[in-house]
């Protein structure tokens, strides 16, 4: 039986295949105890392999805390047990999927997870309960259909999102899809994005008025715009910066109202550089870009980014993709047609009213597949891929409301499509309506979850669906958005909902009771323009009756045509607080125990299962990744040596020294590039000629002769490759890498001491230098 690695060798892009091999090598080294937890933890996060609840090997089972006796005590990160199941996040740039990718996602969900694909609020796909040792093959299979998990988690540029109806939208300036795609792949693995102190999120929107792009909540937002310059029509973007939800939501600020299309990639790159250089690295709670902008001020931040932009080494990729923008178009599977609306089935009509969007292109519509809580089974996804192939071709996307859309449905096909979806149990209506509740994973699987957001979301979803079947929801109420998160970190985007919730706990008579804090009046439209007001906390089990009360109050007290957001603003916080307070009481434990456990989890509620989240990742300086890559390359050199591939062994050992030297030089000179001559010259000038590398303080490994191993090999470009020389070089390379390690450690200690001496209040830019 061949391995997936062998089986897919011809189908995976070479670079991706090699990255996954390196990752698998890291897994092996970690199992052998040769990589420290912190480094491995961040390395796996950068490949999207995330921790999951109880992965510290402890779980409260409702009676007491119990250890989960996994087979080994090995770890895969700080306080993270090797054998504990984890989550695999899979980046889907701009949510774009084709049927082949859908089938593959279905397969891997079945074989490595629990046969469920979960769509996230950032258009990713997540698989849960995945064993770490299955992740390399999982990644290879994804790579074979053009999907990478690289930088899906960790301190990196996360999935680049975009409107799910980009290109077919009736109000967009132009299709942002090719721009979002170019941005996603330009920043993926880019050297300028590897040393950030925290995650970085980018979104594209086709307009300023709809909700789908949500640029207001992103570190970097691009809103499509056209204008005239000297009478010439120009395409570009209004760029916003520093938005973000989290515990304290920040509105994005206007960076530039008109950035020409050819400038968006370098601008993003320059922004990442400034963020990496000056962003907070020690205090995780203040490390997002929004805090840096707050600290520096928008004007100063803008100045720094524009200065950085000027000195960026030119890169043809900034504009190469623009020639494809002109040619970019999606190919429908079928010609356009019109729907005969006479005698349509009432069920179909009801579904069509909420789940079908008329495209800008006549005769085509977008059909939304409503997924309860963002979940779809493997069987459904595989079957849906077939349906997509037949009706829309490659034009499927995930949405930030945790649904899927089929674009370019020929309108006359809608009844037949609906029948197909019914067969798959995917013909649920109510897309974007009150029953389409959005939720993060919460306590189901998240290490940070406080309350069971998915339990509550499922309960509300089912109640609303049932009421809607009975026609018992007023249209004004049905238009409301409900979103929830298991904690204050806002993965469920609760700030943007008409009624939002996030999990908290309260002590009542010595016991802990799950609650949700209520936010009201958020605005989903206008790219998520307004954040809801936080009002107070309601016990988890009382939320459904609380929502009934709020919605009834809205219906009975609203002015004609008044939106919920405006109603909330008009009646004011005092009245809203009274509504919340009316539902805040908790009966004693003796009187009613049900409030002391959470939705769909009968265990007596506790918050003791919360552990350190991995959302922030560990801050691991880039040089540590470089040194690890150098070791990996040297390991490969040893393998070549064993296989009697002398030249390959020699070259790999030489490359391993170059990687280590480059890592070291880049601590001083970021724009080093990959030219070996330049790497060696800069290393020599900065570390050898200055005698820093051979200084006694630099540790026992850092003798000058170790530096000479690199310098001599570099100078010996015409060398004859012999087994003996190669063996020596492999050994020398290992010593050189150790010497760089030793020097780096010494340097880090000295910097830490220097930092300790920096007085509080020192300007950040000054301290960072």
């Amino acid at each position, binding site marked *: *039986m*061949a*391995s*997936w690695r062998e*089986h897919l060798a011809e189908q995976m892009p070479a670079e991706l295949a090699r990255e996954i091999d390196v990752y698998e090598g890291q897994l092996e080294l970690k199992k052998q105890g040769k990589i420290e937890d912190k480094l491995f933890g961040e390395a796996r996060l950068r490949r999207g392999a995330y921790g999951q*609840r*109880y992965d510290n090997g402890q*779980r409260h*089972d*409702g*009676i007491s805390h119990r250890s*989960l*006796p*996994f*087979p080994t005590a090995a770890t895969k990160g700080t306080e993270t047990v090797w*054998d*504990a*199941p984890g989550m695999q996040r899979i980046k889907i740039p701009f949510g774009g999927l084709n049927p082949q990718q859908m*089938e593959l996602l279905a*397969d891997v969900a*079945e*074989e490595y997870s*629990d*046969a*469920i694909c979960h769509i996230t609020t950032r258009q990713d796909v997540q698989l*849960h*309960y995945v*064993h770490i040792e299955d992740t390399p*093959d999982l990644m290879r299979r994804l790579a074979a259909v053009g999907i990478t998990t690289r930088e899906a988690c960790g301190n990196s540029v996360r999935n680049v999102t975009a409107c799910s109806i980009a290109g077919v939208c009736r109000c967009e300036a132009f299709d942002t899809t090719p721009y979002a795609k170019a941005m996603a792949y330009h920043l993926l693995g880019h050297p300028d994005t590897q040393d950030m102190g925290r995650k970085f999120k980018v979104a594209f929107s086709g307009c300023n008025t709809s909700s789908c792009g949500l640029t207001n909540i992103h570190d970097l937002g691009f809103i499509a715009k056209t204008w005239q310059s000297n009478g010439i029509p120009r395409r570009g973007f209004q760029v916003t910066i520093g938005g973000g939800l989290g515990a304290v939501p920040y509105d994005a600020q206007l960076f530039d109202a008109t950035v020409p299309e050819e400038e968006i990639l370098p601008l993003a790159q320059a922004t990442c550089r400034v963020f990496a250089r000056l962003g907070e690295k020690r205090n995780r709670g203040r490390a997002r870009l929004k805090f840096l902008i707050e600290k520096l001020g928008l004007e100063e931040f803008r100045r720094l980014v524009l200065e950085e932009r000027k000195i960026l080494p030119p890169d043809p990729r900034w504009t190469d993709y623009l020639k494809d923008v002109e040619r970019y178009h999606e190919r429908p599977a079928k010609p356009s047609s019109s729907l005969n609306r006479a005698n349509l089935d009432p069920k179909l009509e009801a579904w069509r009213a909420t789940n079908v969007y008329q495209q800008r292109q006549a005769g085509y519509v977008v059909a939304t597949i409503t997924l*309860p*809580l963002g*979940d*779809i*089974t493997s*069987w*459904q996804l*595989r079957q849906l891929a077939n349906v997509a192939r037949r009706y829309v071709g490659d034009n499927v996307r995930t949405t930030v409301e945790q649904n899927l859309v089929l674009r370019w449905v020929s309108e006359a096909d809608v009844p037949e499509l609906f029948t197909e979806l019914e067969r798959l*149990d995917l013909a649920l209506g109510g897309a974007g309506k009150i029953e389409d509740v959005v939720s993060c994973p919460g306590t*189901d699987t998240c290490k940070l979850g406080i309350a069971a957001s*998915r*339990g509550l979301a*499922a309960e509300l*979803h*089912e109640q609303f669906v049932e009421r809607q079947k009975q026609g018992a929801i007023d249209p004004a109420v049905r238009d409301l958005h409900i979103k929830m998160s298991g904690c204050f970190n806002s993965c469920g985007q609760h700030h943007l909902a008409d009624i939002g919730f996030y999990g908290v706990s309260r002590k009542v008579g010595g016991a802990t009771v799950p609650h949700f804090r209520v936010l009201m009046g958020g605005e989903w439209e206008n790219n998520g323009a307004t954040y809801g007001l936080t009002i107070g906390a309601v016990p988890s089990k009382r939320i459904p009756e609380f929502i009934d009360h709020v919605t009834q109050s809205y219906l009975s007290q609203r002015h004609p045509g008044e939106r919920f957001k405006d109603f909330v603003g008009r009646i004011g916080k005092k009245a809203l607080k009274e509504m919340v307070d009316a539902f805040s009481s908790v009966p004693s434990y003796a009187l009613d125990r049900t409030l002391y456990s959470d939705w*769909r*989890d*009968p*265990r007596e509620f506790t918050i003791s299962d919360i552990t350190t989240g991995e959302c922030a990742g560990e801050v691991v300086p880039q040089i540590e990744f470089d040194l690890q890559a150098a070791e990996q390359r040297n390991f490969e050199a040893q393998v070549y040596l064993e296989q009697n591939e002398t030249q390959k062994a020699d070259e790999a050992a030489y490359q391993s020294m170059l990687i280590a030297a480059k890592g070291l030089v880049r601590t001083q000179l970021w724009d080093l590039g990959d030219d070996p001559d330049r790497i060696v010259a800069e290393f020599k000038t900065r570390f050898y000629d200055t005698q820093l590398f051979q200084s006694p303080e630099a540790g026992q490994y850092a003798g000058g002769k170790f530096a000479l191993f690199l310098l001599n090999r570099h100078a010996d470009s015409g060398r004859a490759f012999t087994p003996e020389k190669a063996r020596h070089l492999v050994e020398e390379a290992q010593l050189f890498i150790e010497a760089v390690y030793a020097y780096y450690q010494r340097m880090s200690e000295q910097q830490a001491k220097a930092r300790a001496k920096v007085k509080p209040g020192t300007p950040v830019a000054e301290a960072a230098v």
Partner: protein
Amino acid sequence: MMDLSKFGIKFFAADADGFDILKLIPVYHRWIQQGALQDLLIDVADYSHVPAGPGVMLIAHEGNYALDETGHERGVVYYSKRRLSGGLSDRFCLVASKALRAAQLMSEDAELDGAVNVLGDHLEFFANDRLAVPNTDAAYAELEPALKTFLDKLYAGAPYTLTRETDAKERLSVRVKAASPAPLETLFERVT
């Protein structure tokens, strides 16, 4: 020799009108507290909101248990996720024994009030590893002898019919219909 560790067996249950699958959640949590099954039980995953999905799952280190509702056919499923040792038919027996034990516990549980009624004469075997066992005639031909050895043991030589999944994109799976039902404990004893 075929090396298959990731596979599952679903024993179909009789229809129970009006049974609320959410009743399983406290039952599974109790099983975790009591260590009621031989696997390392980790957590409960509720997918009851997904129509015709995996229902409510009990996640273990070695494999997953569920009262599965795929295809609107309810049944107790267990599938192995970790490496197994021994011959293929022995592995099938092990996985079947785990599914049968869970089915027994469900049928006896007072909180479930007899709503989970596994008849034992109708099961589905599925290979959950497309590399080791793709859904091809050749792979099935290689698998079939071990499968029949296991089924002969399970049904003590009584006749049964086999029907293969025909969609090549689905996992290799086989439906087995025995001539007559047998008590779960009898089936369990035969494979342990």
